[in-house]
C-alpha cells in the first residue's frame, strides 16, 4: 500500500455491499489512501447516494437485498445516460461474466488483495470526466 496521500481533491468512491464488515473494511482502506467514500447497503440506497453526489467510481456487490447490483446498474444507466460512472464489481460469486452483465469496467473476486482493490480504484477514478466536480 502506498503512504497516505493528500486528501484534498481526491475523488469520491461509492462502496455498495450488504455486508457491514465488508463495507467497513473497504471504506477504511480507501479513506487511509485519501479517497472520500460514500457507502450503501443495497441498490436503492446507492441510487440515493449517487443523487446526492456523483461519485468518481462505484465498487458494487451483486448479491444484495431489496435491489441487487444488476438492477442498480440498470437504474444507474437509465439515470446517467451517456456519461456512465465506472463500476468495479466486487463479488463473492466467483463468476466474472456477471460483471459484464452490468457493464462493469473491472471485476474483483472476493477475497481479493488490498493492492488489487487500490489499483482498480485508481484506474476507475483516473478519468477526470468521471471525477466529482
Amino acid at each position, binding site marked *: 500500500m502506498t503512504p497516505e496521500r493528500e486528501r484534498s481533491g481526491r475523488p469520491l468512491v461509492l462502496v455498495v455491499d450488504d455486508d457491514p464488515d465488508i463495507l467497513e473494511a473497504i471504506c*477504511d482502506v480507501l479513506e487511509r489512501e485519501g479517497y472520500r467514500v460514500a457507502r450503501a447497503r443495497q441498490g436503492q440506497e446507492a441510487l440515493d447516494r449517487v443523487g446526492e453526489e456523483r461519485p468518481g467510481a462505484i465498487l458494487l456487490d451483486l*448479491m444484495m437485498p431489496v435491489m441487487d447490483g444488476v438492477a442498480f446498474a440498470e437504474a444507474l444507466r437509465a439515470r446517467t445516460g451517456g456519461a456512465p460512472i465506472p463500476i468495479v464489481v466486487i463479488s463473492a460469486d*466467483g463468476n466474472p461474466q456477471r460483471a459484464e452483465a452490468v457493464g462493469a469496467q473491472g471485476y474483483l*473476486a*472476493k477475497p481479493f488483495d488490498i493492492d488489487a482493490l487500490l489499483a482498480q480504484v485508481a484506474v476507475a477514478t483516473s478519468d477526470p470526466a468521471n471525477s466529482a466536480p
Partner: protein
Amino acid sequence: MSEKADGARAEERGPGADAEGQGEGGAGRRASYLGFVAHEVRNPLSTALWSAELLARMAPAERAGARGEKLVAMCLRSIGRVRRLVEDHFLVERLDVRGIPLRPEPLPIADLVRAAVERAPTGASVETDVEAGLAAHADRMLCERTLECLLAMAGASGAPVRVRGRREGVRVSLHVKGDPPPEGALEDPRRGSPSDARGRSLALPAARRAAAAAGGALSVEGDEYALVLPLAAGSPAPEGR
C-alpha cells in the same frame, strides 16, 4: 435404496442434496447451493484476510490504538462467521454420506433445553414450559445443535423466546417461538439470512437436516419453529389423558 426412498431422502436433504441420480434438476440445485455456500464463506473470509493484512502493515504503536482494536475485533468476528458456516456446511455434507455415527439415547427434554439455552449466543430471555419427565430418544449432539440454532434464530432481535415441550402420541413436540422464521429458509438458505453477520445463513437448513438424521423433523408452523423427535420409552403419559 428404492427410487421412492431416494426421492424422500433427497427432499429431506434439501438444497445440499447430492446430484447423483437426480438428473439435471438435482445437479442444478446442488450447484446453486454450493455457489451460495461459497458466496457466504468468501465475504467473512475477505474481511478476516483484510483485517489481518492491515494489522500486519501497521506500525506497532498504531496497532495498539483504536484502529488496531477495531481490526482485531473484525478479524475475530469474521473468523467466527467462517467457522459457523463451515461447521454447518460440513454437518450437512457428512450427514448426507452417513459420515456421522449416530448414538440415540434417552434425552430428558428439560435438560436438553437448559443446555441449549446456556450455549445459544442470544441475549434474549428464554421462557421454557416443558412437561415434567418428557424425554426423547435421539442423538444428543444433533438435537443440541438443532435446538441451539432455533434459539439463536428465534432470539436474533433480542425479542423474548418461548420454548414449549409436549408429548404428542409417540413423539416429543418442541415449539420455539420468537422472531418469526424467514419464509422458505428451512429449505433454501438464500431465502433466509444471506450475508448473516453471525454466520448463520446455513444454520436453518443444517438444523433441518440434523433433526431428520436424529429421527425427527423440523418445520415451521405459523410463526413458530416446530421440532418433533422420537419419544423415549418410559416417558410419562401426558396429564389429563
